[in-house]
């Protein structure tokens, strides 16, 4: 019998410090056993439990896209016991990855539509996965216009800076990057909060689906803007977080109402979320 | 008991009607024999739900921590002492409270009743003076209350509340000539190995439900030491060392503050006599510092303050 609690062993190949305050690092990991990579077939939006023997596990969204083969990318904020231990690890260290877990962004149902991605802070990770997937040559034509609003506290806190720079140069994506504030007089980004920039740049809900991923405060103020523009609750897609342990819907702790965030989520439409008790 | 109930209801009604308090914290009759449920009454028309009998063993001071409202609380001797400890420890202000003191002749231990019934299930349990009357399928029996008291009540010498705003009954005579530490002396007489084995056996069936901790008014820490993760002080499994560590450490955290209300032992679903930990420390504090918890608002607990003449010969 497959053991769903057993992680695949992986090696950390590269660690990138993403943010100026050094609290967010990206880990590129490769599977020790090539057949494990085949079994780890995932889709944008899913997460994995990163396992550090002796410390525990933490659920982290997969930042790499399935179109990027040979490795997985995780961007981890240093917050608690396991993430702190991860941040202490070196390139070459062995750890474990369990997954892919959870459901995924319904990209198949978004074919032929305009896609709006809105991300804040370090919640942009699964949106990176989605964006890389959609921009891949074999996928780009399946979607219409792609608009992205991505905001962070300041330039130092933006993730994936080199990729952002490359995407800004592309014509097949409308990328709007904003920072809450900046003391750089030559700042090339918008200055303002995500809700405000969203209001400016996202002016139509025609044939569109929006994916929104970020801290609760950002969602709280961005959601009404999308609704004002005309997005229906079924077309606003969100990614939830919760304290998790098993990640497979068995330990009973990550539920919101009758749904487990690790199994019936983390991807939920606003329509679905509105039917659940507000305990998240 | 009936007189107490009547007085409690009348007082509660008056306090609520005259807006002297926002709520009354008392007991209502339980849904199973020999149990009472803590209840918060906020409307004068609801006071008839309040009840008092010899099964009100829960310590209501447990519900007072960090409350912001004006609250009346029904308090036995031990509960009242815990209220004193709460005020000393800034968990609640004295002027928020209206203490309805109940002079107490001891709470009955439901376990002792069941043992006396020898497997027959009690369906209805009532009190008649100093008797406990039990009715079950095909039987009715009358037992002596004095034989069935909780262990801590049997040796209690502070049955009258030391602090109150109104008494809900006549003061009761305090017990005299009680040997409060017979069990502890037995423990002290054991060799270190015997004692170690004794305590390990004592908590062998502990399921770490933390009911003892959660029933205790003293355990109000926002994050208990067992729940800390950075650093993690003890494991969360039922490893015997971790389990014993929990009980020992909790007892030490209660040293000099514990009033021996027995709520911990009463709550334990595995019938573990957890008072053996706290009682020994209570004896030590009495002997070393001549101090009993919660007797007066004038002195702070000895482990709270430093006096130059504190006993120090146990520190080498």
């Amino acid at each position: 019998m497959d053991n769903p609690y057993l992680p695949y062993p992986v090696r950390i190949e590269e660690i990138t410090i993403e943010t100026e305050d050094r609290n967010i690092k990206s880990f590129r990991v490769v599977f020790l056993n090539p057949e494990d990579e085949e079994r780890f077939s995932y889709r944008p939006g899913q997460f994995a439990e990163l396992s550090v023997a002796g410390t525990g596990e933490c659920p982290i969204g997969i930042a790499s896209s399935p179109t990027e083969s040979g490795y997985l990318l995780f961007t981890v904020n240093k917050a608690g016991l396991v993430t702190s231990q991860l941040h202490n690890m070196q390139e070459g260290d062995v750890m474990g990855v369990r997954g892919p877990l959870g459901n995924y962004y319904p990209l198949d149902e978004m074919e032929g539509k305009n896609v709006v991605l809105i991300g804040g802070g370090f919640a942009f990770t699964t949106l990176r996965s989605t964006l890389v997937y959609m921009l891949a040559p074999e996928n780009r034509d399946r979607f219409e216009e792609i608009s992205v609003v991505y905001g962070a506290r300041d330039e130092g806190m933006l993730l994936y800076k080199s990729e952002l720079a490359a995407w800004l140069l592309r014509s097949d994506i409308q990328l709007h990057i904003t920072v809450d504030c900046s003391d750089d007089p030559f700042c090339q980004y918008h200055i303002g909060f995500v809700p405000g920039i969203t209001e400016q740049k996202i002016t139509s809900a025609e044939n569109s689906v929006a994916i929104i991923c970020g801290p609760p405060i950002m969602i709280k103020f961005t959601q009404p803007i999308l609704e004002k523009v005309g997005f229906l609750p079924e077309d606003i897609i969100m990614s939830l977080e919760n304290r998790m342990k098993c990640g497979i819907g068995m330990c009973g702790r990550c539920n919101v109402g009758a749904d487990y965030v690790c199994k019936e989520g983390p991807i939920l439409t606003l329509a679905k979320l509105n039917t659940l008790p507000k305990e998240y | 008991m009936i007189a107490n109930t009547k007085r409690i209801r009348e007082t509660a009604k008056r306090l609520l009607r005259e807006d002297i308090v926002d709520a009354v914290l008392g007991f209502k009759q339980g849904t199973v024999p020999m149990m009472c449920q803590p209840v918060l009454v906020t409307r004068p028309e609801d006071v008839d739900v309040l009840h008092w009998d010899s099964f009100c063993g829960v310590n209501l001071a447990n519900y007072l921590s960090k409350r912001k409202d004006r609250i009346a609380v029904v308090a036995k001797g031990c509960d009242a002492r815990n209220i004193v400890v709460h005020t000393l420890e800034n968990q609640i202000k004295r002027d928020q409270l209206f203490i309805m003191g109940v002079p107490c002749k001891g709470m009955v231990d439901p376990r002792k009743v069941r043992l006396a019934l020898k497997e027959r299930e009690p369906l209805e349990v009532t009190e008649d003076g100093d008797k406990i009357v039990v009715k079950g399928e095909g039987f009715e029996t009358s037992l002596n209350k004095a034989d069935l008291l909780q262990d801590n009540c049997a040796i209690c010498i502070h049955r009258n509340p030391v602090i109150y705003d109104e008494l809900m009954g006549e003061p009761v005579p305090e017990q005299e000539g009680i040997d409060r530490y017979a069990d502890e002396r037995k423990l002290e007489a054991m060799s270190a190995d015997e004692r170690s084995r004794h305590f390990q056996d004592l908590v062998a069936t502990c399921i770490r439900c933390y009911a003892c901790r959660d029933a205790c008014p003293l355990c109000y820490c926002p994050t208990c030491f067992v729940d800390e993760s950075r650093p993690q002080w003890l494991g969360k499994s039922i490893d015997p060392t971790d389990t014993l560590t929990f009980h020992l450490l909790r007892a030490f955290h209660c040293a000099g503050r514990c009033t021996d209300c027995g709520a911990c032992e009463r709550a334990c679903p595995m019938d573990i006599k957890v008072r053996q930990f706290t009682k020994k420390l209570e004896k030590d504090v009495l002997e070393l510092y001549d101090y009993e918890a919660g007797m007066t608002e004038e002195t702070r607990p000895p482990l709270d303050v430093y006096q130059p003449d504190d006993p120090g010969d146990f520190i080498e």
Partner: protein
Amino acid sequence: MHMLKIEKKDFSDFLNRLKDSYRLYGPVRKDDIVDFVPIEGVSDIDLSFQNSRLSPKSLFLPQSERMFEYGLDCAGDDAHILKEASKDYSPRAVIGIRPCDAKALELVDANFDTPEFRDPWWVKARETTTLVGLGCTSPCSTCFCTTVGGGPFDDAGLDVLLTEINDAFLARVLTAKGEKLIKDANTFEPAEEELVQKATAIEQEAGGKIVSKVDTSRLAEIDTLALHGADFWEDVQFACINCGICTYLCPTCWCFDIQDETHGRVGCRMRNWDSCMFPLFTLHASGHNPRGQKIQRVRQRFMHKLKYYVDTYKMGVACVGCGRCVQHCPVNIDIRQVCRLMNEYRTEVS
């Protein structure tokens, strides 16, 4: 299903023979408490109990269970790589489990054995264990199994069901596993019709002895959000002290925590029972706690047992009426009362 019988005087013989091919578990009394433990000497088994203090769920979901082992010494090839801890899944027989607890195991199967994932330890423990149940001739006054889909002689989840009749037991063999156990023991005889009739009478009488009842008829149809926002939770939650007694004693509670414990350079990943009643249960690393208030936690437990489980699995409530929480809650929070409040809840009709 065929009916067999065994005289009580031959029961020890039956158990001893079982021991040849099964690891035996049964109820053993220590002071006032009966619990299901491994049986060394068959005379330890005490069947004169109403129910065990802890439910036998610990035989399938131990309170602390090793999952994996690891070494942290970088010298080895396997450093930091988890390996499954070895377990003994040789055949087991549990004697004397009550119908409510056996039904509970089936309710918990829905959680651990799903189309997407199967918990290997729970599933293997269930597969290799044969349950010989003992029906309840004298249910407790706090038992309410009949109104939550069970009964004192209900056979759900059991492989063999025993009915006690004076000096004998009637045995109903219910499954292939049960057949095998009876064959292995080879100590039963066919039961005569008269005995079967006596047993039926006892069983019916037992059903009538259940005095405690709940009504769950409306739970499925009431709107979740309405129930969640009901005004009665404030009163229900007041007395709760957020200990873990109800969850730990409950045969249908299954929540667990996963912890790594290291000693020196080796360690194990284990799982331990956890409780939705504990404040830590849903605490995020950021400090955010979706159920940081007691009322949220108390409400969650009852909503899960009596509403979410109903909606998700369509197998009725996640409660078998064993009455343990009712008997042992230190502040007398009574699930039967809460069930009534929930079942009778109606939003204002404007």
